[in-house]
């Protein structure tokens, strides 16, 4: 086994979400810096998934099928998200979450337009409520410091740092999610930059990854209507910089 032997038992417990207390804290701290233990955890999670197959019993009653089909017929689909799809990234889940997040932000910030917006989104008030609650759940999940964040990659490959920026120009609205970010040196912070089609890079938020390398930037203050060519990340002093300090550690261009 490539993972550290002293953590082998605890890794299995963590995969089952059965590890608590100090041992969990210690292991999570170790996982930050140990890719072989992280890989082993991913594999153990796969092994854990197999346990579902051991459950057996009667088939669900026929009424369950009818109930489901009736419910999906009643429920209009979420917004189409295919247009913005990028095959090389696992962007779809984030886009779906981001769509809900934007809805939620809209509800909170612009309550006077709530009714109009809701009417456009959904016909029935019960569905509006469901949507809002789901959006709130998404927001709390996305921003929760104790959320479990899992990025899976091909077996054998160590998890790579990933950032996902979702930007709506008309509303100057930006959501950024990062995973597996390397830990920072002391008194340093990551800074996200919006690279406009013309002009200098615009600061788009500072962030520090949590113990597991995850970070989010939600709705940083941005000038209105800037067309973005790309997004980039640099390492800056904690108070931030007005221009990026080279080198660029991560970068991605829009479509």
């Amino acid at each position, binding site marked *: 086994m490539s993972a550290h032997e002293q953590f*082998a*038992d*605890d*890794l*299995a*417990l963590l*995969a*089952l979400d*059965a*590890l*608590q*207390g100090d041992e969990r804290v210690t292991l999570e701290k170790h996982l930050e810096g140990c890719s072989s233990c992280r890989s082993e955890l*991913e594999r153990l*999670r*796969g*092994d*854990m*998934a*197999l*346990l*579902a*197959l*051991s*459950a*057996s*019993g*009667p*088939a*669900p*009653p026929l*009424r*369950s*099928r009818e*109930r*489901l*089909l009736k*419910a*999906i*017929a009643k*429920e209009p*689909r*979420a917004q189409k*998200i*295919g247009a913005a799809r990028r095959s090389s990234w*696992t962007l779809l*889940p*984030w*886009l*779906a*979450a981001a769509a809900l997040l934007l809805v939620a932000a809209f509800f909170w910030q612009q309550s006077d337009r709530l009714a109009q917006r809701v009417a456009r989104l959904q016909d029935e008030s019960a569905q509006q409520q469901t949507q809002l609650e*789901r959006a709130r*759940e*998404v927001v709390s*999940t996305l921003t929760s410091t104790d*959320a*479990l*964040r*899992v990025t*899976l990659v091909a*077996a054998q490959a160590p998890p790579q740092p990933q950032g996902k920026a979702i930007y709506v120009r008309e509303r100057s609205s930006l959501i950024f999610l990062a995973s597996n970010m390397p830990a920072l040196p002391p008194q340093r912070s990551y800074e996200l930059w919006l690279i406009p089609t013309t002009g200098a890079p615009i600061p788009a938020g500072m962030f520090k990854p949590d113990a597991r390398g995850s970070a989010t930037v939600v709705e940083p203050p941005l000038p209105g209507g800037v067309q973005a060519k790309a997004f980039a990340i640099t390492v800056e002093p904690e108070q931030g910089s007005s221009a990026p300090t080279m080198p660029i550690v991560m970068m991605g261009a829009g479509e």
Partner: protein
Amino acid sequence: MSEASLVGAIRSGDESAMAALYDRYSSLVYAVALRVLGDTGAAEDVLQEVFMQLWRNPAAFDSSRGNLGAWLGVITRNRAIDGLRRRRPETDIADVVVSVEPDMAGDAERARAMETVRGALGGMPAPQRSALEMAYFEGLTHTEIATKTGEPLGTVKTRIRTGLQALRKAFAE
């Protein structure tokens, strides 16, 4: 129809694709929910909830990174444990990605995978199997299992690890 194209059809709002997926996986989902909750009504609710989540947010499942059967199994287990322990859902479905080897899309593959898992569990010493099942189906922590069985913590831990390893090995053979 392949799993990826079924999920694709669900993404574009095809209700018949949803029915096809239900027919393929409802028994697995229901069995897991019933095993955890021990109550048919509650298991039916989890069944409904899990498939509705897939319908509402099919993008949460990334077909390039694991198979749907395993993913649904994990989502169902987590939801059912949340229900059992009467806690708010802790994990959004989009956060759960599962990568497992065995293909479960066909009835035959699924039956073979189930047989392999049951065979591996059946071959384990009873206390080991029981520790694994308490963690998985009852959502107990290792300290809770140790208290329940009166065994040392270290023993419980090792049993769970070697149990998972035995499962992996059964599929590697």
